[in-house]
């Protein structure tokens, strides 16, 4: 057990946990915005893939790293628009549409990649984001290397959590978004456009998800390969429930998952001989399910989540 203690008191462990958590922070935040407005976005897994692929491709073709992030966001917003048009004004099933978006976005990404690189034995690489040390803070013992020697997108993720939390809680726009997810008829009768709010929220949320995808190819790794998203989108769906639809708790949940994942990698290394490694791979998921069970009992769903709003419908 002193092994375990050594692991979690190492700054490198926490540094890794935060790195692993970064795409989940983006994804959970993006999903949370969609759901707060009343739209479940199961396209997240595909939008992650599309973001990862388009961001990487932009940089590979000579674009700047930040241009890559921007392109990923735009591609994400595009898929978000498609999802929103189908589910908001047309009122189609959000489950079916979302899964369709995931299939479409994933396949389109793979297809594009294959067309661009028909015969490569090893994936082409780019020069990814490098860690930035925050002057002063990064020299602090333990906390410095854990928190303040990350890549720019990680800082951006945390910044975005604060921005989204502020917008939702403190601005008229945030109130309108929350009300669209609680009772769209209330929004409509106050003279606001439910469609506009919901479509906008889904596009913004999807853009943020795609940035999370681009973190994987522009920051965590330096290449794009198939199956690299590996269910991160689905984890985010669960993390939104874990977070009770609150940005601060979403950050916490993502970090927790990141920590479990970092832990299992290290446990594999230290105890891998005795126990099959698959058990360690399971660990973060099992612990997440447990945390979810405990947390989601008290969670209050947005009342109008997944309920389409049809204006002027005769009731």
């Amino acid at each position: 057990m002193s092994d375990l203690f050594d692991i979690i008191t190492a700054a490198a462990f926490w540094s890794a946990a935060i790195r692993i958590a970064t795409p989940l922070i983006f994804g959970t935040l993006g999903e949370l915005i969609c759901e707060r407005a009343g739209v479940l976005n199961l396209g997240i897994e595909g939008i992650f893939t599309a973001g990862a692929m388009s961001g990487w491709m932009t940089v590979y073709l000579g674009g700047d790293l930040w241009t890559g992030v921007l392109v990923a966001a735009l591609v994400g917003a595009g898929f978000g628009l498609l999802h929103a048009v189908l589910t908001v004004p047309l009122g189609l099933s959000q489950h079916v549409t979302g899964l369709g978006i995931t299939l479409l976005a994933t396949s389109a990404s793979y297809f594009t990649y294959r067309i661009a690189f028909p015969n490569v034995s090893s994936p082409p690489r780019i020069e990814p984001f490098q860690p930035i040390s925050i002057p002063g803070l990064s020299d602090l013992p333990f906390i410095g290397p854990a928190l303040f020697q990350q890549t720019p997108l990680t800082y951006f993720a945390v910044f975005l959590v604060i921005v989204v939390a502020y917008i939702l809680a403190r601005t008229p726009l945030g109130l309108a978004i929350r009300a669209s997810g609680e009772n769209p008829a209330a929004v409509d009768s106050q003279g606001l456009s439910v469609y506009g709010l919901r479509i906008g929220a889904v596009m913004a949320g999807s853009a943020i998800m795609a940035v999370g995808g681009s973190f994987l190819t522009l920051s965590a790794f330096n290449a794009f390969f198939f199956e690299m998203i590996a269910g991160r989108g689905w984890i985010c769906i669960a993390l939104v429930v874990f977070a009770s639809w609150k940005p601060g708790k979403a950050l916490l949940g993502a970090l927790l998952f990141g920590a479990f994942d970092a832990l299992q990698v290290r446990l594999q290394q230290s105890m891998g001989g005795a126990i099959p490694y698959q058990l360690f791979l399971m660990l973060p998921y099992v612990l997440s399910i447990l945390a979810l069970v405990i947390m989601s009992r008290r969670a209050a769903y947005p009342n109008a989540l997944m309920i389409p709003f049809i204006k002027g419908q005769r009731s």
Partner: protein
Amino acid sequence: MTGSSQTPAQQASLALSISGVTKRFGNLVANDAISLDLAEGEILALLGENGAGKTTLMSILFGHYLADEGEIFVANGEGHLAPLPPGSPKAALNAGIGMVHQHFTLADNLSVLDNITLGTESLLKFWRSDRAASARLKELQENSGLHVDLDARVGRLSVGERQRVEILKALYRGARILILDEPTAVLTPQESDALFATLKRLTATGLSVIFISHKLNEVLAVSDRLAVLRAGRKVAEIDAKAADRALLAETMVGSAVQPNVRRAHIPGEAVIVARNVRAPDPRGRQTLENADFTIRAGEILGIAGVSGNGQSALAALICGLVAPQEGEIVIAGEPVRRFSPRALMQAGVGRIPEDRHHDGIVGTMRLWENLALEDIRDPAAQTGGFLRQGALRIRAKEAMSAFDVRGGGPETEARLLSGGNMQKIILARVLDGEPRVILANQPTRGLDVGAVSFVHRRLLDARARGAAILLMSEDLDELLALSDRVGVMYRGTLSAIHPAEDMTVRRLGLLMAGHDDLGDAA
């Protein structure tokens, strides 16, 4: 302007003028060239049966629907009438029209303040001016008497309080014309009185009110002028002081309404007895505590109460949806041992459920199927597990003509029927088996006068043949007219049961609000 020579609308300055509005839904003409004026500071009651077009007209006024023909003019700041851009709630709000819908448009998980300020500030602002908003609201509350905690979550408020939030919402946006769609349908008599007092207070300051209702009593009590709609047309416009009740009812329905009279008779022996019953609510709201009552053959026991005071637990118990935790239910001398809908049905209980769309019928199934739902195990309905479709269709046809179901045949999907005809289908199904006990839960909710009269007559017929009827209704006039004895549910407890003759609406209202029965409150 038809049907009246002297209306206040012509003397005072106009707040609103509706001119020749027509609205069609497919073949149905919901509004047929309706013209209507509203004076400043006036309360205009819009009367009519369900489907007369009241709500449609108001939805056009508020921009939820687009009129096919006609125009609407609203007084602007200087008192000049200006045309209202159609089809935009935003334009209506900006013109000073506020609407309180029958089904409140509030978000339960948000605070009162959030609900009121929603949409009143620019979406591009980076902060909310909550402090200024609450200061203004406090002042509004002082002036209007609409008191409610601004920081409370709307989901925790009573129905009366929610209505206050809706009115505040409109006033906060500077409404000069307030539309109230059946505002008293959900209120106790005392809450209604408080609402009327508030409205009087507000109109004294220049607010104009359109008040939609089909209850004559309250309309006559509160309004200055009445407009009656029938089948989409305006059929009368009368000064409230000159209104004649009976004539008004007739104008509304289009023909004379026969009142149903409960004939005195001596009830038989006890059919259903509840002894100290405690039962949970299937939806986890108010449990039923310690209920004690007896209903004899040929007797109607009426239960009043504000929704959510344990009525649903009582109804679920009689339906067999929940089992008592304590006490027992005895039907025809036999204690009920197993509680399931089927066991209770076999014991002779017929049920008219509260929410007919949800619990009463299956909308996407045909009428003959709906009529057969409760006895598909009977040999008359099936042989060897196969439905006897031919026989069931014939039976359905007979039941539909016996209960005067209109708007379709046995093959029609149930969802296509109007509320009144749907209720007739349920009545046909329930009364066909001549049940010993009938649970009638809000049997006339949302029905128009004609259908209400039909339901009343059938219930009284069942009483005459010796059924024991448990009637739950929020319409206190109905309750007192039909019941032999009445009790009130408050916080899960059933009050002492009194003969209906000793009760008044006022006294019921006090009991519903939890006041002790003083006996002399009548």
